[in-house]
């Protein structure tokens, strides 16, 4: 009888039982089948197999030792010379050597345990959870004596003052949290664009300057189809310049005015079709900088939020919920682009206090 025939026969019987008794023929409880018969390994019965397994384990440990030696040699052979390739080569070969040395110690140990160490199955009976009556009575007696000798029940003043002291104990930890830094206050709603800058005794709004060079931008230089990555003038001189940059980074483009829809209240925020928008995505704050000059779509590389630059950077795709804030700009006497004011709304992702 082949396996297939056996299976077919067994199946036939099942159908007969099921059809006759409705499944009631099943026993109330199954007999514990016990452990399967212990099968000896090759190394248990065959001395040559045991010898072979021993040699294999030794070989695996030798490979590990060779890996260690290789890592030491690799340290001297592949020196980082200051270019990417040599640094990569150094870490690569060092890493391979050390990985081999550790990995083959593990493989050898496991192989040793699997082939040569005893593999007899052992049954450990579970003990009762409940202690003996004597032990339980002893425990109660210890607590009772403790209560009596300390007098904690009789002297409530001591007990209460102790509880009070324990309750106060974690307070310094809370005070230490203050060192995590000052509260953000209103810093999330303001950027460097709103702060005036003093130059030669004259106080004025900040010019739009190029990232990273810091050169001011002439309105005439922003040709159609161009994109400028902009930071506020004097950004590098501010105390926390990276934090300021993360809020104030701006993307500058020139559009054909007839393509643009200007929302109400934003007339006069641009200069001859030059528009400045925050570069910080309103989703989670990645720099939105993938500008397609034909479609005027601005794409965020992190989660593919897409903004339409011709329509106040409203969201046309992706997880962002709010349009990119627009920076009102104008042009000064010397022809440089300059901010009119700060952004009129916070830049970057939403946060709890923003209230939207």
């Amino acid at each position: 009888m082949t396996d297939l025939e056996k299976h077919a026969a067994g199946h036939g019987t099942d159908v007969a039982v099921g059809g006759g008794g409705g499944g009631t023929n099943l026993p109330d409880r199954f007999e514990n089948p016990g452990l399967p018969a212990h099968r000896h390994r090759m190394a248990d019965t065959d001395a040559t197999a045991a010898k072979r397994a021993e040699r294999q384990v030794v070989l695996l440990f030798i490979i590990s030792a060779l890996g260690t030696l290789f890592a030491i040699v690799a340290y001297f052979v592949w020196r980082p010379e200051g270019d990417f390739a040599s640094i990569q080569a150094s870490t690569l070969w060092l890493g391979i050597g050390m990985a081999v040395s550790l990995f083959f110690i593990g493989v050898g140990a496991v192989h040793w345990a699997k082939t040569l160490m005893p593999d007899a199955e052992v049954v450990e009976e579970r003990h009762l959870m409940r202690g003996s009556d004597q032990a339980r009575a002893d425990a109660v007696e210890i607590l009772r004596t403790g209560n009596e000798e300390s007098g904690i029940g009789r002297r409530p003043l001591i007990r209460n003052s102790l509880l009070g002291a324990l309750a106060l104990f974690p307070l310094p930890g809370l005070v230490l949290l203050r060192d995590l830094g000052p509260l953000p206050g209103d810093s999330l709603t303001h950027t460097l664009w709103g702060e005036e800058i003093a130059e030669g005794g004259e106080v004025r709004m900040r010019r739009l300057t190029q990232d990273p060079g810091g050169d001011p931008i002439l309105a005439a230089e922003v040709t159609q189809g161009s994109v400028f990555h902009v930071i506020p003038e004097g950004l590098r001189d501010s105390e926390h310049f990276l934090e300021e940059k993360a809020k104030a980074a701006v993307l500058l483009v020139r559009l054909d005015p007839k393509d643009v829809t200007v929302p109400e209240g934003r007339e006069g925020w641009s200069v001859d079709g030059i528009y400045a928008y925050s570069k910080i995505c309103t989703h989670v704050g990645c720099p939105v900088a993938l500008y397609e000059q034909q479609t005027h779509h601005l794409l965020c590389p992190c989660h593919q939020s897409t903004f339409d630059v011709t329509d106040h950077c409203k969201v046309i795709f992706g997880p962002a919920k709010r349009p990119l804030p627009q920076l009102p700009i104008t042009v000064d006497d010397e022809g440089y682009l300059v901010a009119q004011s700060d952004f009129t709304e916070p830049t970057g992702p939403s946060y709890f206090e923003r209230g939207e």
Partner: protein
Amino acid sequence: MKALAARRRHPLAGIVLLLLGLFVMGGAYAVAAPQQAAASTTASGDADRGEKLFQANCSTCHGPSGQGGSAGPSLVGVGAAATDFQVGSGRMPLEATAPQAPEKEVKFSEQDVADLSAYVATLGPGPAIPSEEILQVVEQDERLAEGNELFRVNCAMCHNVVGSGGALTRGKYAPALDGVSEKHIYEAMVSGPQSMPVFNDANITPEEKQSIISYLKYVEAQPSPGGLSLGSLGPVTEGLFAWVGLLGIIIACTVWLGAKSS
């Protein structure tokens, strides 16, 4: 042949056939693939001859005098740089309407490209083909560092930090920059082909453009000692490698740990 016929129902036959097919396809592609045109010296173009070439090859879409039409944009003011880039990299003439014109085999000779560029330059003032001096790759560390910083601010979000390219919206993409000639990189920056914005000389000066190109050529020349750079695409390919390769090893180890020794 008889042995082959007898084994055709073997369970591995399908896999063998698939591998064979892939191998043949790959081999055929390697033979037939268009080779990167070598950076050419700027030949001086003949605008009159270029006009004739233009009439014959480009006017269907761009109009008889380059004023544009329903199928193609106006070429007035795009300059010689744009023409040299588009035609010289094989993007033009367009093969089919697609989200983006791909780089393909160049259809015109160097002289033809130069003549066409000279003609388009007469339609209106626009960026010229860059000079040989500005296309020289520089090797000073500070220039490379400057090129790297400018590339990171202006280019890397689309083209990837080592110029491996990347995806844009709706089927458009920023192409990989390795193997692209210095001249074409420069011309792309000044002319802003397709989705790419223009980076005029006020935005990025010619010397800064030279630094960017030098940085790209420096990165391109870096060998990959690990053997596999995985396309330098970052988390996508590296993540795939970790999931498929490394998790595979971990699963194999787990299975081996649990199996009883024979």
